[in-house]
């Protein structure tokens, strides 16, 4: 049974604030006003309609003189985009997909490869899931990160084959009821042989050189394979499409979307309904997102404030709520570092599984760092000047939240206190 639509006919201020906190990191009172009174479908349509053009910044990863600098500039460029884009849902989806089809800059230290990977995530964020998975498998960043560029006929490397099933598509399954076997991993690895890339390999000299995808027929094992219960002379693309078509894939994708947009607590009934919507649309991510953002589950009162902000969502949300004040490039790089210290470095999750999120964002050190960051953004001597007032509605999601504690503070102190409250750290 697919997701139940929300009974809300037109968005109240608080409905609009809720929608924007979750889809846009954060929003100003004016931006909230602009969606108030619209139908949920209109609002979702507006958020999901975006071009692929990026904001102008002075970040140019190709101008770097070392691989380390190139990586930092790619991260800064992305942070800039999240802060200033008029299409924040595109970036929020990109952030989510970077935490699904994970690559990491601990290994991938080539600027064009990382930029191409981010371009793919943006372009396919509202496309068809199986096409998305195939493109990711062909991109040099992923080919290098999970060693499929080393996977050749008669010389298997299982890394990508395993994570394709375990993390990108079906998931491992329940103990005692696995979704695939070790044999599927090894046969999948055979099928995935032959995809590699040329150029950009030397970290010291070629970090700004563009690597190019190549299918090398002589390195491909074209023998018969049995994979996920089917037998044939599967190509790499066949393997990825078979994995994407695994009956457990919709639930896995739905679980990711749920954790990103609905709640940090898994909900088997809710994700099953979302999986049905995904399945019925043939894996169309735009249709699935439209259904999700107009669903009862998304708007129902008990799910509001049930999502933990990640570190990046914490800093970007604060600055977007402040009306996207002008920052220089150095400050933006500082925000990349602050997020990293709080546990989320862009393009560098701790493992290929990515960040689990939810309560895992919260510990003594990350709470302290959030408080320090909030102080720097509001009270510090270099704090950016907000171009929009921070209000309980825009920051906390409710016009009447925390009235008494906020009463006797000045504007900067009010902003600080709201940003360190549990209400802002949730959305």
């Amino acid at each position: 049974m697919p997701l139940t639509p929300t009974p809300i006919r037109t968005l109240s201020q608080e409905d609009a604030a809720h929608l924007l906190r979750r889809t846009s990191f954060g929003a100003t009172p004016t931006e909230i006003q602009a969606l108030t009174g619209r139908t949920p479908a209109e609002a979702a349509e507006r958020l999901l309609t975006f071009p692929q053009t990026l904001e102008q910044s002075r970040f140019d990863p190709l101008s770097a003189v070392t691989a380390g600098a190139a990586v930092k500039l790619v991260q800064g460029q992305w942070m800039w985009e999240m802060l200033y884009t008029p299409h924040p849902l595109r970036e929020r989806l990109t952030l989510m997909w970077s935490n699904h089809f994970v690559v990491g800059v601990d290994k991938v230290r080539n600027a064009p490869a990382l930029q191409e990977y981010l371009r793919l995530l943006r372009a396919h964020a509202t496309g068809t899931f199986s096409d998305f998975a195939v493109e990711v498998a062909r991109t040099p960043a992923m080919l290098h990160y999970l060693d499929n560029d080393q996977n050749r006929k008669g010389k298997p490397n299982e890394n990508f084959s395993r994570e394709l099933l375990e993390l990108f598509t079906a998931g491992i399954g329940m103990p005692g009821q696995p979704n695939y076997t070790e044999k599927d991993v090894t046969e999948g690895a055979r099928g995935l042989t032959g995809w590699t890339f040329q150029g950009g390999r030397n970290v010291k000299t070629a970090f700004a050189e563009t690597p190019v995808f190549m299918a090398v027929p002589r390195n491909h094992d074209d023998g018969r394979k049995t994979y996920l219960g089917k037998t044939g002379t599967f190509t790499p693309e066949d393997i990825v499409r078979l994995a994407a078509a695994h009956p457990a894939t919709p639930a896995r994708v739905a679980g990711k979307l749920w954790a990103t947009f609905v709640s940090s607590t898994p909900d088997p009934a809710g994700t099953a309904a979302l999986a049905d919507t995904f399945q019925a649309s043939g894996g169309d991510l735009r249709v699935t997102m439209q259904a999700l953002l107009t669903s009862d589950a998304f708007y129902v009162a008990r799910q509001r404030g049930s999502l933990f902000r990640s570190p990046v969502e914490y800093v970007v949300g604060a600055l977007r709520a402040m009306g996207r004040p002008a920052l220089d490039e150095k400050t933006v790089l500082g925000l990349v570092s602050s997020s990293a210290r709080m546990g989320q470095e862009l393009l560098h999750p701790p493992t290929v599984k990515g960040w689990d999120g939810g309560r895992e964002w919260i510990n003594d050190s990350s709470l302290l760092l959030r408080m320090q960051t909030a102080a720097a953004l509001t009270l510090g001597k270099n704090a950016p000047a907000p171009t929009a007032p921070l209000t309980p509605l825009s920051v906390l999601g409710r016009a009447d939240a925390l009235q008494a504690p906020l009463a006797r503070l000045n504007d900067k102190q009010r902003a600080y206190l709201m940003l360190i409250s549990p209400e802002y750290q949730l959305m």
Partner: protein
Amino acid sequence: MSDLDLNRRDFLKISAVAAYTISGMPGFLARAAAQASGGKTLVVVQLTGGNDGLNTLVPYSNGAYYAARPNIAIPKSDVLTLNRDLGMHPALKPLMGLWDAGQLAWMENVGYPNPNRSHFASMAIWHTADPSQASSEGWIGRISEQIGDPFCASNIGTSTPLALVAQQYALPTIDSVDNFQLKLPAGVQDAFDAMLGTPRDGEAAYLQQATRAMLKHTATVQANIGRYRAGTTYPDSKFAGQMKDIARLIASGTGQRVLYTSLGSFDTHAGQRADQDRLLTELAEGLKAFYADLEAQGLADNVVVMGFSEFGRRVAENDSAGTDHGEGSVMFALGRGVKGGVHGDSPDLEHLNQGDVIYRQDFRGVYAEALNGWLNLDARRILGGDFRGPGWLAS
């Protein structure tokens, strides 16, 4: 009423008392309290990503090892000889002094039933000590519930591993001891107290509680930490910095029974030698400095280090000069409380399970000895069964 309910009730009783007595206790008293309860600290080092056990503790007399690894085997001439058949990876040279002093133990063939080759499933099994993967609580989280104190264990790093997850408590993660302090800006103290005092439910209540716990933990650490003076120079690596912070916490008597940290990534599918060599160097240099520091502080009798990884790697190398995910592997332990030597038999490299060494020692037996013999806790309650280890602690 089930056993579980009884335990819960006991936990609640104990935790109420512990919370009362521990909060606000001056440093020297907290230290005395820790010593009364044994004064022993267990340091757990997680090697993330699946460390290759065969290139760590090398079976250098075994032809099958060299046959399976023509490119990445450690040449016999490079091995640090421990006995007739085994030697350490050359990068572990900084640990040779500990070995010679009988303070370094290796546990062979450690694993668990129905091995899982997923990093994440396998790591979760080591963290929860539950191969059925039914538990959502970590084994160290359960220690905190048995003791009744969320501050009895801490992680040094940026995010809390599942091993330290408890149902009742949020166990601390300390990114860096120096930054582990709260400085509230002027003029907001009253509003902050009022904000934190606002009644909440759901995840907001969780955050509220986590913030209150953080206030208490930072106060405890900062009240004590000034006592520490490093007894040695630590190398300039992230791991060594983490070990130094662990030494600082122990030496300043903040009272944790378990301290946890991680090093990675050991996921060496391609070009294994370069990556694993670098990581094992970092590991050995960090551990050597840590131990020297403890010696200088006069605390070497009170600390044992135990290291593990979620699995070892396939016996045969792959064609990218790396190794794919395997099953059984080695664990290590060091300290004066350890019975130095190799515990257990080396794996039979000619009889494998799908290309992997077959485990003989359940890792829960190794944990059980640390719990019963070192921390003086009831391992049965924490691990949910009786597990036997190889006798790696000195008696």
